[in-house]
């Protein structure tokens, strides 16, 4: 009889624990992982586009050595950072990663700005397609980052709010770093890469 009561109590405890946000912690944590994987995926997609883009621009504007070099260097810097899923748990590595991707973004927009001066390049179908793919990828990055921000926000709320914060403490769930707020506005809209008008000033 005592055993049976014990079993019932154990069962109730298990269920009550899930009522205290343990399951919420697990599912939001899993969401972050998925969202982060998507962010990495889209950044990788951008990196993969670069050699082709650089080659195409070179064909028409080989004299723009510096800009082309800038893109290649920024790309290799991005490549040197191990973009693992664990990055989300390490605020410093996370910041480095963000910074490298940001540098690549500005190198790319410089390249596209320069392309503005080459009418032949601009009307090249291959370049136009690459440009469309780059625009699309930048937009995918923006969407993936926004979803990641939402996922982290949700998770951090669970970690901090009562009573699930107790559960989080008990099981060692920590707050995760967020994409920094000062560039959140900038993340929201994809960088302008159309050449019809003057591009926005780069910071």
């Amino acid at each position: 009889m005592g055993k049976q009561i014990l079993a019932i109590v154990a069962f109730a405890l298990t269920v009550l624990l899930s009522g205290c946000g343990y399951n919420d912690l697990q599912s939001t944590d899993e969401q972050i992982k998925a969202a982060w994987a998507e962010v990495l995926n889209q950044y990788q997609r951008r990196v993969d586009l670069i050699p082709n883009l650089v080659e195409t621009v070179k064909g028409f504007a080989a004299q723009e050595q510096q800009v082309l070099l800038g893109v290649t260097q920024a790309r290799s810097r991005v490549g040197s950072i191990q973009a693992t899923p664990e990055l989300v748990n390490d605020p410093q590595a996370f910041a480095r990663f963000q910074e490298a991707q940001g540098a690549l973004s500005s190198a790319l927009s410089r390249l596209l700005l320069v392309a503005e001066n080459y009418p032949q390049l601009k009307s090249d179908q291959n370049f136009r397609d690459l440009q469309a793919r780059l625009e699309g990828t930048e937009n995918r990055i923006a969407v993936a980052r926004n979803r990641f921000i939402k996922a982290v926000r949700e998770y951090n709320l669970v970690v901090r709010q009562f009573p699930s914060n107790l559960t989080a403490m008990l099981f060692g769930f920590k707050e995760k770093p967020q994409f920094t707020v000062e560039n959140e506005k900038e993340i929201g809209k994809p960088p302008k890469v159309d050449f019809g008008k003057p591009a926005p000033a780069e910071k």
Partner: protein
Amino acid sequence: MSLISCTRSTAGRRWFFLLVLILAPLLLASAGAEVAIPPLTARVTDLTNTLNPQQRDALEQKLAAFEAAKGSQIAVLIVPTTQPEAIEQYSIRVVEQWKLGRKAVDDGALLLVAKDDRKMRLEVGRGLEGAVPDAVAKRITADIIAPYFKKGDFAGGISAGVERLIKVVEGEPLPEPAGKSQPSRPVVVLGLVVVTAFVAMVVGGFLRARLGLFGCAAGCTVLAGAAGGAVWAIPGVAAFWGIFLAICVFILGLIGGALGGDGGSGRGYSWGWLGRFGVSAALGGVLGGAAWGFTQAEVAVIFFAIGGFFLGVLSGGSSSGRGWSGSSSGSSSGGGFSGGGGDFGGGGASSSW
């Protein structure tokens, strides 16, 4: 969808909403007032009255025929402006709400035209990114549609663009359009019925037999708490239903105890296993269904189906589950249009004219 599943905000999650309420203005401070997303009622939504009824109907029919043949959902939305948001931001918000395309196939697409901004965007669902890569989407918008728009021929541009998009998607091998058969709901509810009723009755009866009335009540309290907690922990289910289920389980357990009699001494009102199980199954069906977010009609159908079945069993006849016949009411298919649950990842292209 039922109304029940949409109401999430109750005690347990109130803090979350409070925090969101406090944080939201801070985060959106710079965003200002965003353009509202119109409800999805038709494939072609024109908020600017640019298309005349004939043009709209023709387009609507073309898109409907394509969905019937290929399964892919394409929608057109014309708004005056997306300011202060960029067209890409507005567009992704629209498709996140509309969920065009089939679930897990993600074969939706949206042609968004912001007339006064002189901008358009072809938003492509994840499943169509292979057939319609960004470069193709760019060509459709910039090379096919934009020339029409420049001349002021919006109907012609949209029609030509959609036609081209359809042609491109047609070449893509997609799953056959299904006859919309989704048997999962009755299965889910049956599972809930059986588990809830069985556990409550068996444990109630067992506790009564072993521990007497007080033990039974105590056990039922624990069990009720456990069941309520479990339901509450399901994401998307409001705390109210957890509490509701807890109370019902408590009562069911007590009924189980009462009907179970004390240790098989054979009281007069013992209905036998099937009878007890039947009553509690019907009750369990109702509350399980309610907790899962069913419409009242669905719960009623299940209730009568199970009640009828067990009444039949009890009376010795073989009523083969009357009431099931009308159970598959399914989703709306009369006139309206709704997204199939497709996912978008930001693919596509924007152009201006």
